[in-house]
């Protein structure tokens, strides 16, 4: 798959997919999408990247162990549920916080962090799998 055309076009494609994935994740609470689909698209972009540039290049680019990203996702999701311990409510009771930043109000909520956790889990895991399947020689998995 090592052709000039693919190699050159790939970064553009991958960047588009990544941005799109974040978008899909964040607006999931109000429209179709969400963490899972977002993470899936992000992982797909990693797969495209890997096919175009090879696995070592992707690993170098990611820096972090993909499974650690997944682990971070679970921790994020779990802790966002644990927060409700402090409001004397059951596990995973949502907490909403509205940040006033200048003219815009940014809603922060535990479900949002939860969904972001989902995003990271899916992204990390599927990237790990894709890269592991792609890699042709022993890698530090």
């Amino acid at each position, binding site marked *: *798959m090592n052709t000039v055309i*693919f190699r050159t076009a790939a970064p553009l*494609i991958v960047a*588009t*997919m990544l941005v*799109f994935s974040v978008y*899909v994740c964040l607006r999931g609470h109000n*429209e*179709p*999408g969400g963490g899972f*689909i977002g993470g899936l*698209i992000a992982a*797909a*972009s990693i*797969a*495209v990247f890997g*096919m175009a540039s090879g696995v070592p290049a992707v690993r170098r680019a990611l820096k972090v162990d993909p499974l650690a990203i997944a682990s971070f996702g679970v921790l994020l999701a779990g802790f966002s549920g644990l927060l409700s311990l402090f409001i004397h409510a059951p596990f995973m009771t949502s907490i909403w916080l509205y940040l006033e930043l200048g003219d815009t109000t940014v809603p922060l909520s535990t479900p949002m962090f939860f969904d972001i956790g989902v995003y990271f889990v899916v992204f990390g895991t599927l990237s790990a799998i894709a890269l592991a399947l792609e890699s042709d020689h022993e890698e530090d998995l």
Partner: protein
Amino acid sequence: MSAAAFVDLSSLIALILLGVALLVSIIRIVIGPTLPDRVLALDLMTVVAMGFIGAIAVRTGLMLYLDIAIALALLGFLATVALARYILRRGLKTDAAAMEAQS
């Protein structure tokens, strides 16, 4: 006929056309004869499905379906690349018989 009604009608027509296109494109997936033919047809089918989703978006007025179509294009690309890689490495071996029949 109002514009809305026209859009409604045109989306119905489009859906039917696209439905036919879906069915037509699977002919090639089924009959092949070679693997690249099938891959090509599958790639086409994702495009058709994308159009189908777009048409539903128009029909229902839910523009958010657009994103599904775009995402399909994104992943369809990945699928085609993966299949092309398969063809590059394994292709002809799985198709020797089909090729003989063709030539």
